[in-house]
């Protein structure tokens, strides 16, 4: 049991990060904090992929003499794309928040929905 927990320590940490992200995303009313939660959530997934590719005792996947065990490079490559997507999402999110701030004079979700309802 202990072995199981310790052996998968990276996954437990990832899950923790993911949950913190999701919780922030759902519980905060401040739009910027929401975005921060979202970014954490995405980062957790990126970590997850990267740790997937790691093979115990494996090395960088460059063919060289003396090495037979390589880590899988594919997840890391994939995550380059995912990082780009994540950055784009966050940037777009912040752009929207700026526009919302201009339009509503607020970045608090409950205040905004109050204003929407009044109309």
């Amino acid at each position, binding site marked *: 049991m202990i072995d199981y927990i310790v052996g998968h320590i990276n996954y437990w940490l990832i899950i923790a990060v993911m949950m913190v992200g*999701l919780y922030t*995303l759902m519980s905060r009313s401040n*739009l910027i904090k*929401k975005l921060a939660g*979202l970014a954490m*959530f*995405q980062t957790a*997934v990126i970590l*997850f*992929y990267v740790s*997937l590719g790691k093979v115990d005792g494996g090395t960088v996947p460059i063919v060289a003499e003396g090495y037979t065990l390589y880590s*899988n490079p*594919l*997840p890391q490559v*994939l995550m380059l*794309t*995912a990082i780009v*997507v994540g950055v*784009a*999402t966050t940037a*777009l*999110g912040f752009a*929207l*928040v700026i*526009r*919302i701030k201009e*339009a*509503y004079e607020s970045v608090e979700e409950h205040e*905004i*929905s109050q204003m*929407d309802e009044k109309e």
Partner: protein
Amino acid sequence: MNEQLTILLVVIPLIAAPITALFKNKDIAWAITLLVSTACFVLSVIIMLDVIDGKHVIYELGGWRPPWGIEYKIDALNAFIALIVSGIATISSIYAKSSVEHEIDDSTIPLFYAAFQLCLLGLLGIALTGDVFNLFVFLEISSLSTYALISMGKHRKALTAAFSYLILGTVGATFFLIGVGFLFAASGSLNTADIAQRFETFAHMQLVETALIFMVLGIALKAAVFPLHSWLPNAYSQAPSAVSVFLSATATKVSIYALYRVLFDLYPVQYWVDMLMPQILLSLGCVAVIYGSYRAWQQVEMKRLLAFSSVAQIGYMIIGLALLNQNGLTASIMHLFNHAVIKATLFMGAGILLYRANTTDLGSLRGMGRDIPWSFAAMVIAGLSLIGVPGTVGFITKWYLLESAIETGQWIVVVTIVIGSVLAIGYVWKIVESLYFRSSRKVHIHAVESGDDSVGKTPIGMAVALWIGAGLCIFFGLNTDLSFDAATTAALSLLKQ
């Protein structure tokens, strides 16, 4: 030769989009968009004709052999979806010209069209790719551009609608990504065909089941399957008209398509049947139909009404899928197309009302239908299709759905279809009643500068696009050769029959 055409579908908008953004002139931007959409449409038609009898077209990106490289494998289903997306994009582009000029600042129009093309690119990419990670990337390309497009709506509510869609959409896409990760961990591959082929070797792993749940949840969120639909009504009702037209007809459809691929191609059907997934999906579909139709009936704002009706129509597609037989799946696939045509037409109608009266609030639009009898007539045709009156596309879908439900003995579906149709009569009649039978309130022109006579008549482009839509509602209601053949071939290949 056709292999090269498939990649062109993605490459053309990819190259055209940044070029469009560079132009300052809104007319040029529009012309490029129309050209790009039309080109994609023509390519889709060519590909469709090639694969309609069950053939495949395969393209390997960069010459890398699958399962290492990314592969585009086009069968009737891919081509059909590509056809829907590019066809609707063409109609929306025709429609967009005046609508966009009316609703969006001149300076941002080229950017709008660039985002539109990126969205088209993303949706086409999803439709074509045979690689699950690539699918995620295209999903995000289309989503990101969608958020931007929605936020360009006239009202400030568009911003919050886009923001909450961004949050939920990203969560959905990330869920999908987690699912892909699990599946990759189990199988070591990202190629759909490859995973499916070697499925037996890793089927026993718990991971595979978790992967499926994550993927289905993620896609269901993007497809607005009840109860994950909450982003949809706001997003569609606040977006600029041309965007509502395009998205309502394509975005959720493409996600449903992704659901087919995951459920039928990636996983063996028996695998998720054992997980009781058909029963769950069927119940959700039935609830979606009734809930969506009922909520639509309650709405007082036309675009919101149509958006809720979309929730209901997605329910029909899910029901068709969950019935798991040829007729059901055919109905589901055909409904992707039929609903795209119907909803696009109705949203175009709503856009015309917005253009003419600056509001889509049914109360303020009273009697407006009498000022625009022809556009109104087109909307009525689409409304009848939504109900499912014979002679229109809506009837065809409901018919096959009924046939399938009776074959499988799912009487609950029959009851759902009946209730759904009755409620549909209710909400369509609500539109007709307010627009046509209520005596006009002469307040319906809001915030229009005096002396602006352009609002006095419907621009020709909008009217033409609207009538193309209405015409298609009737044409494909009477002549189902294309849609039925494509859907049947696709359904058979999904069911591996």
